[in-house]
């Protein structure tokens, strides 16, 4: 079972819809005991970094996610991906989950539109099981104004938007997608299926 972590931070149901469609057993939950029972975790999220960290903290989930991430695959999506890093700078400096080395900063789009919104293509940097069967140059759907700043060794795929934006990051069993796999049509669904395969 994949636990979709519920911490009052918006749009969990599109992730749930995608897993249901793929016939992947899943549960939307914020309970530590359920996260412990799960084979893998998904941390979704829309909104702002500091708010989301406060919500996680309030739900008593910060330590729990750090503990669980040592035992089972974890996939952060969009803001959930950004929370995996050590620090964020959205509105204020804020500590993240610290599961991947790096920080989250405003995109320097060099005059391009912010948010970076729409379908952008993936360039591969390091092999990643989530990309099994996914061709380089595949498009995924992004909506974000902040981006991860991290070492190349943590980047499986990036996308170009004036700067190189980490699109899919990883560190051991911790994965993060800056894009929305649950809104990226067949390619996104294939990645979610790959993630489920890791869990079993």
């Amino acid at each position, binding site marked *: 079972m994949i636990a979709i972590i519920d911490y009052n931070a918006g749009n969990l149901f599109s992730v749930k819809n995608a897993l249901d469609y793929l016939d992947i057993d899943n549960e939307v939950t914020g309970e530590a005991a359920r996260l412990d029972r799960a084979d893998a975790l998904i941390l979704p999220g829309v909104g702002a970094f500091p708010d989301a960290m406060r919500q996680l903290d309030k739900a008593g989930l910060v330590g729990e996610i750090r503990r669980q991430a040592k035992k089972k695959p974890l996939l952060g999506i969009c803001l959930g991906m950004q929370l995996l890093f050590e620090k964020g700078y959205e509105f204020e400096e804020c500590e993240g989950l610290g599961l991947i080395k790096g920080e989250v900063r405003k995109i320097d789009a060099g005059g391009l*539109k912010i948010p970076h919104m729409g379908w952008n293509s993936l360039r591969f940097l390091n092999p990643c099981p989530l990309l099994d069967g996914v061709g380089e140059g595949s498009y995924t759907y992004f909506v974000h104004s902040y981006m991860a700043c991290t070492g190349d060794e943590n980047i499986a795929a990036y996308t170009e*938007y004036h700067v190189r934006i980490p699109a899919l990051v990883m560190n051991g069993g911790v994965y993060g997608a800056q894009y929305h796999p649950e809104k990226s*049509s067949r390619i996104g669904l294939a990645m979610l299926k790959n993630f489920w395969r890791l869990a079993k």
Partner: protein
Amino acid sequence: MLAKRIIPCLDVDRGSVVKGINFVGIREVGDPVECAAEYDRQGADEIVFLDITATHEHRATMADVVRRTAKKVFVPLTVGGGIRTIDDFREILRAGADKVSINSAAVRDKTLVARAADKFGNQCVVVAIDARRNGSGGFNVVINGGRIDTGLDALAWAVEVESLGCGELLVTSMDADGTKNGFDKELTQAVSSRVKIPVIASGGGGSLAHFSELFEQTGADAALAASLFHYRELTVGEVKRYLNEKNIPVRLL
């Protein structure tokens, strides 16, 4: 590179898809969920549902259409038509829409744009502007399906809603809409050169060349069409393959 988006629009009346030519002579054609799934298969980058009845009683029907679509179609969904309040936004977003588009309601109450952006994030708030040439070289905002000319300058209105927090503009040329004679490139370029948010051009798309000219000659980020795709005069895939040949970045399947 960020792809130019091709967006089919489904006009929905009491839970069924219809397409009105110039908003009259409506013909009923099908199940919105199936239509959306077909567009996804063709490579649509996003799908817009426009609720053309849009009375309060029918909001629940639309929410249900969105809910059923979101279980089967995994591209961004935008819903417009008759959204008037923050509660309307919430209901449609909860049902699974990614963005909500407002038109007349924004004109009647500007604060709705700001309040919705504040509550749900700018990226959720699309303002639809129906513009018509006013005879003196400018464009006026019209509402109620083109029946009321507000006298508002469409370009000034675009700038104003951007400053209020709108995340994207859906600009329909009421002169071009239904004609299949091509997008109004002058209108599209006038708007996109004045704002920093993405602009979706709508109205008049009738041939492959109309799409490439739009992207070559204006700053449009996306093109929307309804009956063209609905009656399969062109498929989304045909349009995108053509654009790709013209070296316009698109997401191919």
